């Protein structure tokens, strides 16, 4: 049983809903509108017991159905008898003074005021007209009102707005001056202020459509996509961390980049929707479309020790249902996980039918590794990688052609090589020649002693990370490889091969150095191939060639107490001059005390391809061919010999071949470094059951995927899966999607939506301030008729850029935001739109604006998240879990990127963003509050970002602003506000500047401190006292109400 006190809330919302309509125009008493005036009262006061929730229904009465002749309770009395209030049980109960009859019941905590009851009486008296809930009724494009008032009309938006204003006895405000407008629309469309050049280009353009052209340029700017994407990140609960207790890092920025690009290439909203909800299910989906489905993988993922995976998998799926419902339908489904909706006609069963659409992702529900993406994932190249990928194909082709050319010389090369080779075969030299060292050292201080079999045995101290250094003479000729024999010894732990107590070792790296008086500098050739007769699982010999020092080669000494061999080969043999010495270093850096116990080294001069651990390797077939007279060899034999030569002997051909091989290897390796991103995928279908009270461990009835009965059915031909669901969202007959979207667009440009509760279009929604306008806009969005051209492109259905243009070119949008105090009082939220919209800039735009006007902004689009300034300890003061700890700001450019690229850790989000009302991004948020607090003042006055920006702005004023103080002040004022200062404003600024200058002149140390704040440095030779004083002036400018507000 709900027990809530809502009389106050009701009263307030009553005023909010109907105040403008009636309080202002009480003399006119227009007819009662059921949807606007009565349904909200019934919904709020009665639906809990007489609404959609069957379990809670009292007296068999259901008031959310409006065929009044059918609406009666168990008593049989009709709730509403049109035109006869005195016979309507509903009203009689409302006015009854008998506590047993009275509705709402006295103990319910709910009540209606006298004016509200009067409204219900009038509505019944007027005939009890009803319609279904406005947001669920099909969209019908309303006729555009026509009136003869002499006010500016730019497009139909204005007709609707003015029509309403006239009825309220109001007039629209004047058009804002062009400078204000240019700044307003720049900030709204791109999140950045106009540059003085952009401003002048509009102000001094005589063309009547200069403003419109400017709007086109803004819509065309890559900054537009960034700014639009910013808002989408809140909705999509985007972050760079997994959330919950561990809150380690994840990588979803390729999805963010997709969103930016989607806005910039003006992807129509229907496709924008389908790609994000079901891009993976589109036949022949492009990788790009699959990346888009990251939308529904942006949810948090729990990895806490001890959790029960299914519990969290269910939460994940529920998150998707709720996020999708809120984002596209403006409906809140979260109540339905436990019970039928109290207000909206959505049942618990229908909730789980929606759940079924999102239930087939092959996922565990928990974090897969502490700090990486969790399956399913998709790897996609970055732009640079794609460029390299494209180039590689050509390079490989060219290299192959070169190899083909070189191969023409093969017969001659083979002829020249044969005598040597034959000699090699007949002399059959020892493949591996023992290196007799002149020095063997343990750099860690162990004792290495020579054994009779020429091996060296370690004893004494066993340091954590030992390195053995072996030096010995090298014969002139060739060197192509090194052989390591590791042998067990009775003196070693476990009588095995390594020195660790369990008998193991891990060799992490092998280095050689060849020195000779004949050489100017020692040679340090690199091994490119490593082979061992055995490697312990996970500790492959190949690790020795890699760069990760924590990895290496281990022989499983605890169980395999036997001799081990490993050889390390160069790509091609190197020439050894006379009197050369070889130094070999064996490193053990991976794990403490895992040092080799007993070993010896040998070298080889054979071609790398002909050597094995056991010695030289000459295929019998080749030996046979070589023994034949060249003239007696058939074509096949010749080819075989050439092939052998080509593969094993260093020559121009082999070098050309190895180039081909290395390019091909790059082609093969490159995708391994592609960033991956979590995406949606359809796995084997899971059975979906209603979860009793929403609990994962209380399954009920089995359900299949399906849609709420109150909404339209699937479009014809659409599959009953996520793809069909997405197509349904954007089908023309859907009453919600377009209304929700245009309302959200309206909200961004006017501060408040036509439906104020932009997060809720259900029964409890606020009634639209301009219902016809809302419906017209929704129709126009789906099927444009008015805006014909954006940059000469014809507006398409669901065209987001065209729609934004429609709004910002309306006269309504262009009004000035000044008004009489009386209008602020009458319509504080500007719902009637008798003036232009005026509100504080969002958190991200405030910072971006400061970076832009100071010249610090780095305009690169996309890429991984960056780390700008953040106070010490924000991550570490409350957590020692996960990999997002020990925050360090990026050097240079990362400090000055647009704020949407700032790394976002959900449990400790960027603090200045939270101060300015950004959500934590743990769950889908479609509307931010907009507050005005002293902590915001502290941030804008003192935070290093803003102080450094002020100093750079000061430098700009001094450098670019002209010669006089007045000119420089005017320049800075214009950079920040978009307009020139009045004489009075100029006077305030210049006297303040003078006072600061005097103060710093007396105390240049202080000036030096101020101008040194921040990573960027002031220009050499600048007058520090001057710069400090100007910095405080710039600091003032950046804190002006006018600058933190879009006017």
């Amino acid at each position, binding site marked *: 049983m709900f027990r809530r006190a809502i009389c106050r809330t009701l009263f307030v919302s009553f005023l909010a809903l109907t105040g403008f309509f009636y309080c202002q125009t009480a003399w006119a008493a227009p007819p009662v509108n059921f949807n606007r005036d009565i349904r909200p009262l019934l919904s709020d006061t009665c639906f809990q017991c007489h609404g959609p929730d069957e379990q809670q229904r009292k007296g068999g009465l259901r008031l959310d159905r409006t065929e009044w002749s059918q609406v009666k309770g168990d008593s049989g009395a009709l709730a509403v008898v049109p035109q006869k209030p005195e016979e309507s049980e509903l009203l009689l109960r409302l006015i009854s003074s008998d506590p047993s009859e009275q509705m709402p019941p006295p103990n319910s905590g709910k009540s209606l005021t006298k004016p509200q009851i009067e409204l219900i009486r009038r509505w019944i008296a007027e005939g009890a007209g009803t319609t279904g809930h406005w947001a669920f009724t099909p969209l019908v494009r309303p006729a555009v009102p026509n009136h003869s008032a002499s006010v500016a009309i730019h497009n139909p938006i204005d007709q609707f707005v003015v029509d309403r204003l006239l009825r309220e006895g109001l007039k629209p405000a004047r058009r804002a001056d062009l400078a204000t407008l240019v700044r307003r629309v720049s900030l709204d469309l791109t999140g950045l202020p106009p540059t003085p050049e952009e401003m002048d280009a509009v102000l001094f353009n005589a063309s009547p459509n200069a403003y419109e052209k400017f709007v086109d340029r803004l819509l065309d700017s890559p900054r537009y996509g960034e700014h639009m994407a910013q808002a989408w990140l809140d909705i999509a609960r985007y972050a760079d961390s997994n959330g919950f207790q561990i809150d380690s890092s994840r990588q979803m920025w390729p999805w963010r980049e997709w969103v930016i690009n989607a806005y910039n290439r003006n992807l129509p909203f229907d496709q924008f929707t389908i790609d994000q909800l079901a891009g993976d299910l589109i036949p022949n989906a492009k990788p790009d479309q699959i990346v888009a489905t990251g939308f529904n993988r942006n949810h948090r993922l729990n990895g806490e020790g001890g959790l029960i995976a299914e519990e969290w998998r269910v939460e994940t799926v529920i998150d998707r249902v709720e996020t999708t419902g809120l984002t596209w339908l403006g409906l809140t489904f979260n109540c339905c996980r436990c019970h039928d909706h109290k207000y909206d006609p959505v049942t618990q069963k229908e909730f789980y039918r929606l759940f079924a659409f999102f239930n087939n992702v092959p996922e565990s529900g928990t974090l897969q590794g502490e700090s990486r993406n969790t399956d399913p994932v998709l790897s996609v190249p970055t732009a640079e990688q794609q460029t390299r990928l494209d180039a590689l194909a050509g390079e490989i082709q060219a290299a192959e052609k070169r190899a083909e050319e070189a191969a023409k010389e093969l017969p001659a090369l083979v002829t020249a090589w044969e005598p040597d080779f034959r000699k090699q075969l007949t002399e059959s030299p020892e493949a591996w020649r023992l290196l007799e060292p002149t020095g063997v050292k343990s750099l860690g201080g162990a004792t290495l002693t020579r054994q009779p079999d020429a091996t060296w045995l370690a004893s004494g101290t066993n340091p954590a990370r030992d390195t053995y250094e072996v030096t010995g003479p090298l014969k002139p000729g060739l060197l192509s490889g090194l052989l390591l024999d590791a042998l067990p010894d009775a003196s070693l732990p476990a009588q095995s091969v390594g020195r660790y107590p369990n008998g193991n070792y891990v060799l992490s790296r092998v280095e050689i150095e060849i020195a000779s008086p004949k050489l100017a500098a020692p040679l340090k050739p690199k091994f490119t191939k490593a082979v061992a007769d055995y490697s312990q699982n996970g500790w492959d010999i190949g690790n020795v060639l890699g760069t990760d020092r924590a990895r290496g080669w281990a022989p499983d000494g605890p169980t395999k107490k036997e001799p081990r061999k490993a050889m390390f080969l160069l790509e091609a043999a190197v020439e050894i001059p006379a009197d050369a010495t070889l130094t070999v270093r064996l490193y053990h850096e991976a794990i403490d005390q895992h040092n080799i116990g007993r070993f010896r080294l040998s070298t080889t001069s054979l071609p790398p391809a002909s050597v094995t651990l056991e010695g030289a390797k000459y295929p019998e077939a080749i030996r046979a061919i070589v023994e034949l007279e060249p003239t007696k060899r058939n074509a096949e034999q010749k080819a075989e010999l050439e092939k052998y030569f080509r593969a094993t002997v260093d020559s121009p051909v082999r070098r050309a071949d190895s180039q081909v091989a290395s390019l091909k290897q790059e082609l093969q390796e490159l995708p391994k470094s592609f960033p991956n991103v979590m995406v949606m995928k359809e796995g084997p279908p899971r059975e979906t059951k209603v979860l009793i009270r929403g609990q994962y461990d209380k399954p009920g009835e089995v359900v299949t995927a399906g849609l709420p009965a109150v909404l339209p059915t699937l479009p014809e031909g659409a599959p009953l899966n996520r793809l069909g669901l997405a197509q349904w969202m954007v089908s023309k007959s859907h009453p919600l999607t377009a209304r929700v979207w245009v309302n959200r667009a309206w909200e961004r440009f006017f501060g408040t939506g036509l439906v104020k509760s932009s997060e809720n279009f259900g029964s409890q929604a606020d009634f639209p301030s301009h219902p016809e306008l809302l419906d017209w806009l929704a129709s126009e969005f789906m099927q444009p008729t008015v805006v014909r051209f954006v940059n000469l492109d014809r507006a398409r259905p669901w065209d987001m850029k065209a729609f934004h243009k429609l709004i910002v070119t309306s006269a309504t949008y262009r009004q000035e935001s000044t008004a009489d105090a009386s209008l602020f009082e009458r319509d504080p939220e500007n719902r009637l739109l008798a003036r232009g919209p005026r509100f504080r800039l969002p958190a991200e735009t405030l910072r971006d604006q400061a970076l832009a006007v100071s010249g610090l902004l780095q305009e690169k689009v996309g890429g991984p998240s960056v780390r700008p300034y953040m106070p010490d300890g924000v991550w570490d003061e409350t957590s020692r879990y996960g990999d997002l700890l020990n925050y360090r700001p990026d050097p240079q450019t990362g400090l000055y990127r647009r704020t949407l690229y700032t790394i976002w850790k959900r449990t*400790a989000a960027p603090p200045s963003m939270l101060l300015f009302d950004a959500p934590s991004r743990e769950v889908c948020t479609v509307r931010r509050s907009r507050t005005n607090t002293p902590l915001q003042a502290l941030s804008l006055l003192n935070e290093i970002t803003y102080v450094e920006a002020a100093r750079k702005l000061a430098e700009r004023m001094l450098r670019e602003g002209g010669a006089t103080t007045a000119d420089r002040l005017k320049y800075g004022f214009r950079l920040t506000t978009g307009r020139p200062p009045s004489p009075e404003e100029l006077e305030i600024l210049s006297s303040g500047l003078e006072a600061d200058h005097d103060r710093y002149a007396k105390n240049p140390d202080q000036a030096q401190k101020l101008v040194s704040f921040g990573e960027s440095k002031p220009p050499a030779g600048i007058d520090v006292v001057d710069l400090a004083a100007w910095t405080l002036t710039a600091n003032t400018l950046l804190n002006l109400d006018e600058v933190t507000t879009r006017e």
Partner: protein
Amino acid sequence: MNPLLTLQDQLNRRIFLNRSAGGLGLAALASLMGSPVRGESPTKSIPIGQPGLPHFTPKAKRVIYLFQSGAPSQMDLFDPKPKLADRRGEDLPDSIRQGQRLTTMTSGQAKFPVAPSMFKFQQHGNSGMWFSEIMPHMSQLADDWCQIRTLNTEAINHDPAITFAQTGSQLAGRPSIGSWMGYGLGSENQDLPAYVVLTSFGSGRPDDQPLYDRLWSAGFLPSRHQGVKFRNKGDAVLYLSDPPGVDRDARRGTLDRLKALNGLRHQQLHDPEIQTRIAQYEMAFRMQSSVPDLLNLANEPKHVLESYGPDVTRPGSYAANCLLARRLAERDVRFVQLFHMGWDHHGGLPNAIRGQCKDTDQATAALINDLKQRDLFKDTLIVWGGEFGRTVYSQGNLSETDYGRDHHPRCFTILLAGAGIKGGTVWGETDDYCYNIVRDGVHVHDLNATIMHLLGIDHTRLTYRFQGRDFRLTDIHGDVVRGILA
């Protein structure tokens, strides 16, 4: 100059609030995050929360919530089970476990060996309340404390459980209890936040458990109601210090210019939001002295400092935070919440819990004594507790000197003291294994309803409309635990 106290301005402020807070009506004007505009006078003004609040005369003016994060073991601290000594090592009977779910940290264990506490318990005070030997200071206040031994929660993992304790929901997005109180009741102090959060790491398990912004978040309430977490490093309040090279005079000069320029703008535009902004900048300026003043311990007498224990001089310690809590209470900050981490003792419990008690026992007792000294105890509610309890069976090996305990949401003990609390009360009873509730269970919603009740709030009537629904801290549940009220 004090133009902002006029009726007209009050009206403007209402208009502003309606507008900027999404039509909330008189939303928590007095929380610092949007304090009412005042003149320069440093005296207190009337708190402005929601109209009609408090619903009745409150017992408590403020709350100090000493959250012990990680889940302290109830049977090693407060709820003695002497009969278990004979059952040591026996498998937990199925009749007790009753098939209830376990975390996957122990659900795979072959045995669930009963681990009696290795600590000695003793009765204290006139009330005879039991305390374990590792709480030598808190036990001295037995007649002030009320022990609720039957608190219970719904979550079994830390993140959802602590979120549930703080916000009444296991999932993210709801306002925390302190935000609700700030929203409902406003602030009594114009120069400090209504809701302050202080955090400390514990020595029992120095790396556990992480805390999250959401624990003091305003959720869907206007973000001005979010708790202000005082930082242990750098500025206690973010960006409080003027930049290097800017002294107070210079800052005043900047603010004067801002005030003049913004004032001119207001004359042109008439938007009341501009006046609000001017006022917020002035309040920021005042905070730059009120916060350092709060943090300055120079005038604390030596005996007071010593009473909190040696840690009190280490910023960011639990003891230092307790002292700060008293200073915040003196300044009428509505909701002060400490989070002390380190109570998650899956293994090595005896040692770890000693460390935690060493961190907290003396300072907690000192805080209460200090509040008493200053006559603040009578109208301050103190809450001591964590997000759930711990299992009677040992996680991992049980030895003479060592055992661990897994998460146990079914019953655990928390302590209350101060305003409106009947001291010396033990509420509720658990079974011999401290596994199930025998009588008088108290759900987290009941606890929150009770805290609200003591602040003069009917928890069913403090609501906020979000996404079409009137939300409460206690969802649709919660009964005030009247038996513990004085």
